[in-house]
């Protein structure tokens, strides 16, 4: 009888509804069409950076939003990926496709060393990942023979795919977007799978999840490794996008930025991670006009967005949408003379 209950858990992933499919396709189409309308190099470069950063943010969303593990060390994996890719392509002459996969593998391999800390919870996990992030930064800064130290790592080639060098910023933008979309879809599928549901259970109540027979530690470590893998891939893209690496791109502050992206966008929402990334990457650029007050305003805006609650920007947009829908339905109902009370918007 007990066995039956175990088997009663559906092993299939939650199917996508038509509406979700249309939304996803529309979103992808808009992103891919951007270079048709926007040809300024700098803008495309910024958009590429949004795509690259959002890959890390998506991974962190899996780690923090889905499995509830707070990491303040994603910049370390991002940095490991970036430097791995830089080293492989410049010093060993590997082609880009090999380097990017190797970057992800290198980052996840290093994260395997860190897996024992996933048994720590909450703030303790955050502090250990923070410590790890500082450690990696120090290695990048001090091991000059390998990383170029504070002078930076120069001469990283542009991305070349099958003998064709992506010189046009529009093409490198498309590459970044395609990879970001692939990571997005992969994680969205993961969220809907049995694995995603298990991870969700672990976040909500670790003890209950363990009592129901879920391998809690394994699930948590898997999330940790996947997040590191995607951060490594993003690091590789970053290396070939800016073609110059300095340790200061991978400080603890960068880890905090990734966390900002997730929390600002909305904890637990993949789309939120992308929105949050756009906010964190583009806003300081957009605020250049106000000069020295730029970061002051940026900090204040972050505090204000926090007022929206855990939903972040996505939650805010959703509640705006719900309010608009409410307004429309109320109007139609008023016209048809219905007096049904409106459902209270849930928090």
């Amino acid at each position, binding site marked *: 009888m007990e066995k039956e209950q175990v088997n009663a858990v559906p092993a299939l992933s939650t199917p996508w509804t038509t509406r979700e499919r249309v939304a996803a396709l529309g979103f992808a189409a808009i992103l891919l069409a951007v270079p048709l309308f926007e040809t300024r190099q700098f803008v495309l470069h910024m958009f590429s950076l949004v795509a690259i950063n959002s890959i890390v943010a998506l991974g962190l969303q899996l780690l923090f939003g889905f499995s509830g593990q*707070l990491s303040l060390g994603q910049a370390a994996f991002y940095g490991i990926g970036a430097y791995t890719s830089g080293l492989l392509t410049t010093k060993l002459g590997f082609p880009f496709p090999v380097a990017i996969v190797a970057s992800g593998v290198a980052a996840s391999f290093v994260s395997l060393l860190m897996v024992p800390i996933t048994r720590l919870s909450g703030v303790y996990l955050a502090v250990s990942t923070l410590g790890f992030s500082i450690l990696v930064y120090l290695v990048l800064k001090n091991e000059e023979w390998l990383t170029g130290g504070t002078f930076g790592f120069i001469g990283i080639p542009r991305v070349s795919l099958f003998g064709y060098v992506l010189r046009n910023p529009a093409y490198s933008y498309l590459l970044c977007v395609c990879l970001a979309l692939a990571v997005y879809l992969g994680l969205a599928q993961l969220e809907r799978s049995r694995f995603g549901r298990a991870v969700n259970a672990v976040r909500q109540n670790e003890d209950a999840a363990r009592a129901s027979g879920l391998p809690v530690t394994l699930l948590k470590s898997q999330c940790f490794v996947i997040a590191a893998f995607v951060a490594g891939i993003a690091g590789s893209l970053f290396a070939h996008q800016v073609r110059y690496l300095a340790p200061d791109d991978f400080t603890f502050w960068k880890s905090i930025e990734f966390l900002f992206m997730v929390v600002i966008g909305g904890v637990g929402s993949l789309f939120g991670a992308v929105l949050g990334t756009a906010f964190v990457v583009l806003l300081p650029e957009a605020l250049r006009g106000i000069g020295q007050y730029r970061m002051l305003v940026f900090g204040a805006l*972050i505090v204000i967005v*926090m007022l929206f609650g855990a939903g972040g920007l996505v939650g805010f947009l959703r509640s705006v949408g719900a309010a608009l829908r409410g307004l429309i339905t109320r109007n139609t109902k008023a016209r048809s003379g219905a007096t049904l009370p409106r459902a209270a918007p849930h928090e």
Partner: protein
Amino acid sequence: MGQEYIWDLFVGALAIGCVYSLVALGFAMIIRATGIIHFAQGEVMMLGSMSALSALWLLPKLPPGIVMLVGMVASAIVSVAMELFVYRTLRLRRIPIMNVITATVGMSIVCINAAQIIWGSEPLRYPELFGSGTYGFGGVRISPQLVWIMGMGFVIMGVLQLFLKHTRLGLALQAVAQDPDAAQLMGANLTRMMLVTFAITGLMAGAAGVMLGSLFFSFFQMGFITGLKGFIAATLGGLGSLGGAMLGGIVFGLIETFTAVYISSAYKDGIGMVLLILILLVSPTGLMGLWKKSK
């Protein structure tokens, strides 16, 4: 490397450890009372340091005690203002704790950039607050700066302990930290207690800021890394434990100083981090947990 040198290092490590302890105490007290990791604690410290320096510019003849007091009060005002205008609002709207923590980082960005606009980006030299020359202790010569900083650090921490153990307000603070609901039923005003917590942690951060400034420099980014180290020290001690925070700060100061001299100055922060991770792996609740386990 004579014994004298080691003593000199040791006192220096204790002095810097006291600074970390004071910041760590702030982290520990706030996390106990509100559950927030207050990432702007380092910036509260920095603003106190800057304000005290400005007071010195206006009145160069101020005695060190008053300078310290100015820094402490300035930090307390900043800290209380943050609680009143930001964190309280967030709490009243029942915003999840992670968002409040992110907001504290936002506040820290605001403080850093405000300080850069007001005081500029250059490191600002502090005058030697506590006299120059050396003190001799049984043949060992030690800078009075270090001795005073260490002494003041210990006095402040002692006063805090007395306050928490022997005054009504202090006991109420402890009660709120242990069980907010029960404390509230007993008549403790939660909202006021949080304000008091932020005021006290601000006072301590201000003292730390003046100490750190007089040891090195004062500049707009000084709070960030010091705050981080204070946070790590608080975790090292076992988050939320006040004794642990003090111990953590001093241990961190010792590790950092002696690593820099004997192992590698480039990796002086790194060794501390490795030890931190190892300690947490052995005892997931920090040094205090280890202490209790061995008893």
